[in-house]
């Protein structure tokens, strides 16, 4: 059945089958067992790395507020990240043509992923992850820059200069020694 759904997802493009209710990542982290084996949908940002392992591609999906605006882009602080692993069929994942996952300088692609939640999957040594059968692209990746704080740089350079001046001023005085053993 799962293979059929994957096939279906591939046939209709990259649209996620509207079979499942949306679940917050926090709920999966707090009580993952409650969703074991269920078809669920998670919306979030793809972050870190696209881990391509042949038939499957693993990516972390975060649904925290930073999926909207990351901290370096000016996003407000809202606690730690909140993410789960998603296993995509590589063929399906590559069809989306993502350029980069979320990282410094990149707000990663935001996707709506549907899949089977596998809690403590024994076939994978007790790991928990979402086994994707389809996904929708909500928003493409967005690159951003963080400006150099010139005042900070100048203060640093000034301190380096001050340190060098103090060092130069005391250089001629005799060195201290001590015991080593």
């Amino acid at each position, binding site marked *: 059945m799962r293979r059929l759904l994957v096939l279906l997802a591939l046939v209709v493009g990259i649209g996620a089958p509207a079979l499942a209710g949306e679940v917050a990542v926090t709920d999966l*982290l707090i009580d*993952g067992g409650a969703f074991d084996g269920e078809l669920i949908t998670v919306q979030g940002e793809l*972050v*870190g*790395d*696209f*881990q*391509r*392992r042949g038939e499957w591609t*693993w990516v*972390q999906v975060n649904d925290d507020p*930073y999926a909207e605006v*990351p*901290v*370096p*882009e000016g*996003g407000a*602080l*809202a*606690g*730690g*990240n909140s*993410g789960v*692993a998603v296993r995509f069929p590589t063929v399906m994942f590559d069809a989306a043509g993502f350029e980069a996952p*979320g*990282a*410094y*300088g990149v707000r990663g692609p935001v996707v709506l992923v549907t899949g089977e939640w596998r809690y*403590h999957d*024994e076939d994978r*040594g*007790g*790991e*928990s992850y979402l086994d994707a059968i389809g996904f929708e692209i909500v928003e493409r990746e967005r690159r951003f820059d*963080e*400006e*150099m*704080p*010139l005042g*900070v*740089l100048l*203060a*640093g*350079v000034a*301190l*380096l200069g*001050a*340190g*060098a001046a*103090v*060092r130069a*001023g*005391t250089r001629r005085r*005799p060195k*201290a*020694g*001590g*015991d*080593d*053993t």
Partner: protein
Amino acid sequence: MLRRPGSGDARIIAYFLGRICYVVAAAGVLPVIWAAVAREWAPFASFVLMVGVLVVFGAAGTAAKPTEPRLDWSHGMVVVALTWLLVPLVGSIPFSLSGHFGGPLDAMFDAMSGLTTTGLSLLQDLDHLASSLNFWRHLLHFLGGQGIVIAALSLFAGGGGLTLYYGEARDERIFPSVTSTARFIWAVSLAHLVFGVAMLAVVGIVAVGLDPMRSLFHGLLVFFAGFDTGGFAPQSTSLGYYHSAYYEAAAAVLMIAGAMSFGLHFALWRRRRARALQNLETRTILGTFTATLVLGIVGLATAGVYAGVFGLTRQGLFHVLSAHTGTGFATVPSSELAGWGGLAFGGVAIAMALGGMASSTAGGVKSLRIGLTLKVLRDQVRHVLLPERAVVSRRYHQGGTRTLTPELAQAVMAVSLLYVALYLFGAGVGIAYGASLESALFESVSAGANVGLSVGLTDPSMPVLLQITYMAQMWLGRLEFVAVFALFGFVVSLVRGR
């Protein structure tokens, strides 16, 4: 009568602090270069500022030039205790300016956690953190794990090495000279660096499916955190990010190497395996690891957390190993770890409290003290059971045959009790803020034993007093009390001395 420290004492302390600041400034150049290469200009500026502050401290300190150049025991201890406050303070500047922390105290919490190789973190939005800042977090593990003072000793031969060496909670000299010992420690670490990063990078490419450059990046950071039993990780889901038993196994090799004393490294390097296995410390850690592993796995099995043997052994083994070595890597979220409960929870907590080997990068009570404490207890029981005239051997094997003197037994018991008090104190503060006994004790042990596993109490919204308590626990636990007590004594002498 207490002697009030004079300007001569202050000059000696300032001079050696200044030298150490130069060493840390040199290390701080690495993230400057990293940020420049990665074109991360905001972190670049903050790293320049940090290095600038360190250079000024270095120049001002060394300009003090003591008239009496000898560094005595109390000076050395004060230098070490202050170093471990000053470096997190200055090292937290880039964190403070990054915008990823709620304030300077949160930033210093992470710098202290990094340097003491604890791994608890208040950083927010790690998954968008600049790579240079991530590198600096992990480099702090490396500096702290190897010992900043060890770094200074390696570079500056001479200068009161012995007291600084002992102050940083190392009590094993592999060579007669402390400088040679310090250089050996760095040689071992650099050899592991090359081997460890290469191993993790290859496993990252082959088993995890990372791009080669990203795999190298992850390998370097995970090496720092694994070998130095730190516990920070490049991504927010710790080692669970990789979803690979192979990657966990590779990290485990480094965690074990990090928890081994450098004396044991030396014995293995000299192919003295049999002698290494005879050591009381080696036998103790093997025993306590087996016992806590059994507790953990039986606990997980009886609670039905994992359905099969593979999941049970993989998760149980990894977390008990992570706890016992003081690393703090996790493959499950903290909310799930908190839900383990019962025996498994207890097994992990006990493993954290016991810690790794003495003179290693691990924290906790340490196996040598556990072994000696058990020997004292066993000898006492023998005394009671054997005839009055019977002689009970007080010898033990630790890099040769040694005698357990009453003074040594007393010192071992005292430090062990101090650790217990430290764990209980932190737990008490946690409970006062409404945490359950289990959670408060777990988190307190994690901070005091410099582990980093968390059940969620360490959070950006945590109370300031609890935050300061955990920072103090990390500092005390890493320096094994003596240097910190010496600093307190120094301050008391300043106030009350004549």
